[in-house]
C-alpha cells in the first residue's frame, strides 16, 4: 500500500463516515424510513479487505449494514442515497431500502436482512465461479452474532468439503443487536470456531486499515489460489446502536471512549500527518469537500428523484414475458 493508496483510502473512509452521518440526519428528518443500520467505527474492515481484493470483479455479499460495502464495490453513492430515500432512481429502484442495497453490475450481490442468510449464498456464488472457471472469489461480510446461526456451520462445512473460493469476513463489533458477545456466545474468539471445519483463519485489529489490508491480502491470496475457503475475523466497534431504533443504553461510556480513541479514520489520518504526507488543513479541506459533495450531489439527487409509480407495484415479482412459463411458446 503506497502513500497515494493511503490518501485515497483516507478519503474513501471519510466519505463513508460522512455519508452514514448524513443518513442519520435524513432519518431524523424522516426522509429515510424503515430500519437503518449505520457503519461508523467499522470503516477499516470493509475498505481494508476490499482494497486487498478486486472490488467490482469479486462477488461481494453482506448483511443489512450494507451501504458502505456497496459503495466500495462501485455503487454510485447517489443511487444508494436515492434508495434510502425510496426513489425510483435508487439502486434497487426504491423496492429494497437500506437493508437491501444491490449493485449487481459491480458484483455487489446484496444486503440481506436475515442474520446469517448470506453465508450459504456466498458459498453458492463461489460454487458458480468454480464451475465457470473464473479467478474471481466470493467475499461474505457478516457480524459476529451471525456465527450463532445454523447457516454458519452448514456453510463452512460445505465450503471446505467442496473447497469453494469464498472468503468469510467476520466484523466482530462485540454486540449482537444489544447483547454483548460474552453473553450470547460460548467462544469469544470467532476465528477459533472455524477450526472444526479445517478452514484456515486469522484474527486482526479491525481499526487499523494497514493491518486489515495485510491480513486480507493473505486471506484473498489463499482463496484466489484455489486453496479453498478462509475466515478472517476483524475486531471492531460500531459507534451507534444496532439500528436507529436502538437506544444504545447497554454500553458503558468508558468502553465507547476506549474505542473512539482507536478510530480507523483518525488512526490513518494521524499517521499520514506524522509522516508529513498531509497537513491538518489538507484533511479539513478534504472533509469540507466531501461534505459539500454529499450535500450538493448525493442528497440533491435523492431529494429531486421521483418515487416509483404505484402502477408498477407488481413489477419485479416474477420475470417478465418468460416464454418457458408458457411451455416455450408465445
Amino acid at each position, binding site marked *: 500500500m503506497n502513500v497515494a493508496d493511503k490518501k485515497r483510502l483516507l478519503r474513501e473512509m471519510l466519505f463513508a463516515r460522512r455519508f452514514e452521518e448524513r443518513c442519520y440526519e435524513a432519518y431524523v428528518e424522516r426522509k429515510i424510513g424503515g430500519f437503518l443500520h449505520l457503519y461508523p467505527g467499522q470503516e477499516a474492515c470493509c475498505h481494508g479487505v476490499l482494497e486487498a481484493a478486486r472490488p467490482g470483479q469479486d462477488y461481494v455479499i453482506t448483511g443489512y449494514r450494507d451501504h458502505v460495502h456497496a459503495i466500495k464495490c462501485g455503487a454510485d453513492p447517489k443511487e444508494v442515497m436515492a434508495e434510502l430515500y425510496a426513489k425510483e432512481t435508487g439502486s434497487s429502484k426504491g423496492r429494497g431500502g437500506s437493508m437491501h442495497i444491490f449493485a*449487481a453490475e459491480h458484483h455487489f450481490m*446484496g444486503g440481506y436482512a436475515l442474520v446469517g442468510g448470506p453465508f450459504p449464498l456466498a458459498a453458492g456464488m463461489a460454487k458458480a465461479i468454480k*464451475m465457470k472457471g473464473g479467478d474471481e472469489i466470493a467475499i461474505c461480510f457478516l457480524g459476529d452474532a451471525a456465527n450463532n446461526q445454523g447457516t454458519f456451520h452448514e456453510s463452512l462445512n460445505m465450503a471446505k468439503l467442496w473447497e469453494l473460493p469464498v472468503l468469510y469476513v467476520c466484523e466482530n463489533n462485540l454486540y449482537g443487536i444489544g447483547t454483548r458477545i460474552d453473553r450470547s456466545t460460548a467462544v469469544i474468539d470467532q476465528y477459533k470456531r472455524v477450526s472444526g471445519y479445517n478452514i484456515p483463519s486469522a484474527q486482526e485489529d479491525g481499526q487499523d486499515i494497514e493491518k486489515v489490508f495485510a491480513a486480507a491480502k493473505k486471506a484473498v491470496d489463499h482463496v484466489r489460489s484455489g486453496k479453498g475457503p478462509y475466515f478472517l475475523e476483524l475486531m471492531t466497534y460500531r459507534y451507534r446502536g444496532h439500528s436507529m431504533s436502538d437506544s444504545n443504553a447497554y454500553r458503558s461510556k468508558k468502553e465507547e471512549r476506549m474505542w473512539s480513541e482507536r478510530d480507523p479514520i483518525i488512526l490513518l489520518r494521524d499517521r499520514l500527518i506524522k509522516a508529513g504526507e498531509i497537513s491538518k488543513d489538507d484533511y479539513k479541506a478534504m472533509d469540507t469537500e466531501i461534505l459539500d459533495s454529499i450535500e450538493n450531489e448525493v442528497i440533491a439527487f435523492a431529494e429531486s428523484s421521483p418515487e416509483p409509480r404505484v402502477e408498477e407495484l407488481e413489477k*419485479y415479482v416474477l420475470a417478465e414475458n418468460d416464454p418457458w412459463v408458457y411451455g416455450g411458446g408465445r
Partner: protein
Amino acid sequence: MAEIMYWEAIRRAHDEEMERDPLVICMGEDIGVAGGTYKATKGLYEKYGAERVIDTPISENGYTGVGIGASFLGVRPIIEIMSVNFAWLAMDQLFNSAAKVRYMSGGQVSAPLVVRSAGGTAHQLGAQHSARMEKVFMGIAGLRVVTPSNPRQAYGLLKSAVRCNDPVYINEHELMYNMKGEVPDGEYFHPLEGSEVAREGSDVTLFGYNISLHWCLQAAQTLAQEHGINAEVVDLYALAPLDRAGIAATVRKTHRAVIVEEAEPAVGVGAEVMAIINEECFFELDAAPVRVSAANVPMPYNHKLEKAAIPNAADVVAAVRKMLGK
C-alpha cells in the same frame, strides 16, 4: 409415445437439460452415488460427475442457500429435498432469499432455481414424514409452485422449470414415483401456468391436483356409472399462480365446484379456489362450493387412523351426491 414411470420422466428431464447446458446441476441428499431415494437422478452421477451431481450434507437450509447463490451467477440448480417435511428447514432461504431477491434488488438479481420435493402421505410414515406443504409455498410472492399429476407433467414441468427465470417449487408425491403414463418421445415443455381439463363433464367440477386428481377421476367414474352424474375434472397442476380464468370457465359451465386436497383445509388450495370462484363467478353457482380435505391432525401412525385422516374417492362421491341431492 412411450409409457414410462413418473420417476423415469423426472430422470429424463434432468438428463436432457444437463446434457444441453453445462450450467445445469443437481443437488440433494443421496442423489449422486446412491442414485436418489426415488431414482429421479439415477445414473447421472456416473454420467456428469461429482461437480454437477452433488451429494449434499443433511443441511437443507444450507444447501438450498448454496443453490440459490449459485443461481445468482447463472447456474441452474435442480435441488431435490428428499421429503417435503425437511423443506420446512429450507424455508428461510427459499422464501427470504430466492422468492424475494428479484423484487428487493429492483430486478438486478434473480434466483432461477428449481426445488423438487416429495410430499404427501405414504404408508404409516407418521407425523413428521407426511406433511403436505403446498399451501405454504403457494402463499409466497415471487415463487412459482407446480405439482405434476402424471409422468407427462412430471417431465414437461421440470423441463420448463429449469429454463424459467423464476424460482420454481415442484411438489411431487411419495406414492406416485412408480405411476406409469405416456410421455412424448420428443422434447415437451409443459406450461408453468394454467390448468387442464382431465375429464369433460357438465354437472359439477371436481378440482384436484397431484394425487387428489386421481381421487377425482375415480370419483367421476363412479358418479357416472352409479349415480348418473357427469362430473368435469380439472387438474390444477399450477398452484401458484392459480389459473383464475380456467377455474371460472369450468364453473360457468357446470355451476358447481368441489375442491379435493390431501392437505388440511385451513388456508389451503380449497380455500383459495373458493375465494377465486367467489371473486370471478359467484352468480354462476347453483350450490355452495365444497372442499374435501384432510382431517386437521398431525398424521397418525396407525393405519386405520391414517386412512381416516386423508380423503379418498368415496369421500368425493359422497360430497358430490350431497351437493346434488342424489
